[in-house]
């Protein structure tokens, strides 16, 4: 019996080691998220974006950075929050941190676009390319998009975006946000 145990000992030990791993793998393979849960996540993401915009429009950069930390933890694959971090550091004249955050946003966009070619993602990525590498590279990025996209709507949109020039002070203006709410309500 002891001999038998000795022979199978490595197998038994291996089995004990593997069981928790197998269980954890099973845990990772979670069941698909229900529609209700998806709505809840979308709602949380929406509210997070609104709150962040409020903070950015108030130019409360210290608060923005601490809030962005929590958002990165909650939504680690959301490139827009890294864009907002890049913009915040840009406003604080911290170009090293700003570029790092923008570059991180591009990386996320790359993986998202690789999985699904979404025009909005591509435009948002191209805009960050402009911030990081300048107008020439931005135009080349749009050229590349133009070659991939063939619908007249996309072509027209690309033509329009060619005119867009990044000016950090133009983004997240408090008066734009206030007026949008004030006047927008009249048209609901």
């Amino acid at each position: 019996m002891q001999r038998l145990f000795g022979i199978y000992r490595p197998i038994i030990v291996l089995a004990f080691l593997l069981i928790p791993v197998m269980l954890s793998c099973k845990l990772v393979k979670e069941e698909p998220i229900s529609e209700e849960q998806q709505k809840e996540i979308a709602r949380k993401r929406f509210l997070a974006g609104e709150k962040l915009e409020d903070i950015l429009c108030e130019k409360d950069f210290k608060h923005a950075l601490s809030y962005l930390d929590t958002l990165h933890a909650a939504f680690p694959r959301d490139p827009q929050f890294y864009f907002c971090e890049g913009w915040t550091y840009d406003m604080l004249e911290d170009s090293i941190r700003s570029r790092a955050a923008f570059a991180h946003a591009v990386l996320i966009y790359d993986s998202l676009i690789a999985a699904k070619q979404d025009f909005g993602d591509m435009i948002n990525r191209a805009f960050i390319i402009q911030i990081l590498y300048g107008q020439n590279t931005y135009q080349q990025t749009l050229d590349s998009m133009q070659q991939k996209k063939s619908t007249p709507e996309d072509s027209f949109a690309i033509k329009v975006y060619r005119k867009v020039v990044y000016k950090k002070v133009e983004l997240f203006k408090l008066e734009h946000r206030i007026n949008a709410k004030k006047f927008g309500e009249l048209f609901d």
Partner: protein
Amino acid sequence: MTKIKIYNLSTSSTDEGGNEKGSISNPFTVAEYEALLNAGDWKGGFVEGLGFCLPQVVVTPSGASFPSGVSYYDSWTFSDSSYDSWGYDGDNGNNNGSNTGGGQGDNNHNDNGDSDSNSPYPQINETQEGIALLYKGTSGIGMQSTFLYKYTIRIIGYTMFVSVSVSSVNFNSRNFWATAVLQGNGNKKFHFPLSRDRHDTLSETGWTLVGNVYIELPKSGNATAWLYIGYNHDSGAGYVNDSTELRIYPQ
């Protein structure tokens, strides 16, 4: 051929000071405004908190002065071109602007009136184009909040015409709006929402007409006008909006 719905003044009332209902000094409440609007009896006038709200009068211009095929609201319909609907902006600052937004008469916007030659306003007809650089934190929008705008400002005599169109570049589920805001001599600002009807068209590809409006300028010659262009959008997770502000007069 100009088609005009004639106003009916018989429903107008005055307050104790003799100020006509709907004037700057005797504005409608929002509840009154909504009730009249729902009943189809709204004839224009000042509303608390909203400024001047336009009467629902649709006019098809017949003159060469205004663009053909564009309908517009007539906010001030007095045929007497010497009347200043901005009378409250007078030298003494008193509010004597009764009868604003009401009355009946022709809809010539003073564009043929004798007083036009004396208009202190530069008779301009300009179209400006620009980009509203906007970023929304809402998931999936980001830089797509940005849009192109084009506005035309035209002053003929004492009448200012404003028209706005936008190019929403691949993000078509937005409801665009535009509001002109005018300030005379006083501090108070008046809102003139731009609107269009189903007959309004703009042939230029890629552009969508948001609306247009005619505004009678104060006789004093002092006016500052801004234009607010924005959109409302249902993202699915919540409503978002954004806007841009432009000073359109004086430029």
